[in-house]
């Protein structure tokens, strides 16, 4: 992410994830995948991310499933116990609600409860995000639930490069990982190259996507896209913003965040999930504790409204932060 940005070819996050799938399947025969509509007879998934995969790698490794999220997660967990590395798609994040037992009581806990005899190296891919008017049950961000659950990692990318590198690392990770994809920024061509197959983004490591000295802005998923836009606008108003994309939401990169917060003394956190009890709360609590007395302003959080996601466009727009609201908060903080 440097000056010659504009010169790079434009690719979308979805293209990066598709390439990751292709490369992973070509390199590691132990990787398998399952989910609703994933195989080619069903069109390669609703977003066509796995299109071609079952044709290339066989119906055994790429399986469409019934609408049975508990069975999907159970099959992934069981196969992982026998040495496979399943990528299970729970189509939309709200549908994790019908598979929480499998994810939380089993995937996240089996290593610990077995005293390390077994492990569950699975990846749960799931899509979400508002912007399409899909309303109250199709675009929640529920990452806090999983961040609060010991034994499972959570990540989300806001660039094609990170999407590729994170997914590859998630599949290689020996523990379960939830990989959250933002639908509304999925298809947008971004000024990034499609990485080559050696590219990895380590789990647990945030990216400083823009350096700055006045305000630390922490975000992930779509909010990182909005954050970058807001930072550009803030610069025009003379405020220097350091944009940190967490990338891994749990465990999050305390060192990078604290170092930046120590430097700027002003912190803003933005996520699309409901603000109250969102991951911003944990990050704010830790920053406040670690940097007590060293901050110039109290840590500020922006998040989704305290309601279900509304359908109507003006309400949907008002529900979550965007570049404009982030910018306003930056300016306020920088005062």
């Amino acid at each position, binding site marked *: 992410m440097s000056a010659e940005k504009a010169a790079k070819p434009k690719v979308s996050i979805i293209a990066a994830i598709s390439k990751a799938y292709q490369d992973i399947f070509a390199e590691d025969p132990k990787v398998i995948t399952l989910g609703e509509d994933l195989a080619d007879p069903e069109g390669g998934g609703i977003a066509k991310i796995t299109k071609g995969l079952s044709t290339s790698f066989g119906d055994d490794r790429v399986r469409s499933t019934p609408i049975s999220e508990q069975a999907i997660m159970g099959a992934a967990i069981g196969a992982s116990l026998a040495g496979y590395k399943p990528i299970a798609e729970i189509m939309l994040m709200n549908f994790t*609600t*019908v598979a929480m037992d499998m994810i939380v009581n089993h995937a996240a806990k089996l290593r610990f409860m077995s005293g390390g005899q077994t492990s569950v190296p699975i990846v749960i891919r799931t899509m979400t995000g508002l912007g399409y008017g899909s309303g*109250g*049950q199709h675009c929640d961000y529920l990452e806090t639930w999983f961040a609060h659950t010991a034994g499972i990692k959570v990540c989300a990318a806001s660039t094609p490069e990170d999407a590729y590198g994170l997914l590859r690392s998630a599949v290689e990770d020996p523990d379960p990982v939830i990989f959250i994809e933002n639908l509304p920024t999925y298809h947008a061509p971004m000024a990034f190259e499609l990485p080559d197959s050696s590219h990895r983004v380590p789990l647990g490591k945030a990216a400083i996507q823009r350096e700055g000295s006045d305000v630390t802005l922490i975000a992930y998923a779509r909010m990182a896209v909005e954050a970058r836009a807001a930072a550009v606008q803030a610069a025009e108003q003379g405020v220097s913003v350091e944009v940190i994309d967490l990338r891994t939401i749990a465990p999050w990169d305390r060192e990078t965040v604290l170092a930046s917060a120590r430097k700027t003394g002003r912190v803003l956190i933005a996520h699309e999930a409901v603000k109250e009890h969102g991951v911003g709360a944990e990050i704010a609590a830790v920053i406040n504790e670690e940097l007590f007395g060293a901050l110039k302003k109290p840590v500020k959080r922006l998040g989704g409204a305290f*309601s279900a996601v*509304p359908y109507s466009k*003006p*309400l949907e727009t*008002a529900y979550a932060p965007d570049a404009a609201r982030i910018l306003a908060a930056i300016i306020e903080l920088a005062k």
Partner: protein
Amino acid sequence: MVATNQYVADSATLLEIYKRAALLKANDERARKVILSGQIAMVYYSYRGQEIIPSVMGQLLRDDDTICTIYRGIHDMLGKGFPLRPLWAELAGRVTGSCKGKGGPMHLTYPPKGIMVTTGIVGSSAPIANGLAWAAQLDKSDRVSVCTFGDGASNIGAVHEAMNLASIWKLPTIFVCQNNLFAEHTTFEKMTGGQNIAGRAAGYGMPGVRVNGNDPEEMYSAFAQAVARARAGEGPTLLECMTFRFFGHNFGDDDSYIPKDQKAAAMEADPVPALRARLIADRIASEHELAAIEADIEAQIDDALEFALASPWPEPDDLRFDVFEKEIAA
């Protein structure tokens, strides 16, 4: 079962069923047109081809009978009497919509007509319908509780739990599976162990019947029997209503996964014009009468759409209301 069934749709009933079906068909056609034209942007799940099922249900249900339906449920709701103005205003996201613009097409609700829940979660209509049925039992009312869901939904746990509970509690729940042979892009055949959803009912000790949901008489007879059983306190029924959806999973879906000839054959057998032709052939109604009915429907939709588009949008502040009974602090 149908042969021995005492419930027969007479000519007047068939005409009433047609009126509903014509409304449903026209409304779907308009919705797709409105999206295409850009007048309203919305997620939309066309039910074209499935109109007979809810037209029959609406014919046999009372306003106090309740229904819990799904994202692909506007046909169910129109069949049950959802008025067009609050429907269209909700689709348009306006504050005059039945849900003040907060619910949208996937969560349409209209309690005065017993339209209690529309869910976007596959299978989740079923457990909730049991609660409405339990309430009917407690009220010592003979009202019934209907839930609708798809063939794909029959493989999710919630539906199974709900059928078992309804059976042992003898609840007046009617489980209406609209088997349109596809769940998103996946065929019924590939995902359904046993290839027979109605057959699963036996495992719960309740009647399960597969009917041609596109045949108004067969559908009428089967649904009437389920309603009678429920009203009499004899318990639930599972109906697997065979049908077909013409236009892909949702608006914009590339439906190339549907075999062309299968689709063509289904559209050829379109149940709404078929019923129309039958009414004319059997002299139940004249071409002229039906045309007048259809024109009236179009006018009603025109009115509703106009009402919707002229209505105001909600205000951001509305997010503070209806989360709890008491508003959230600003």
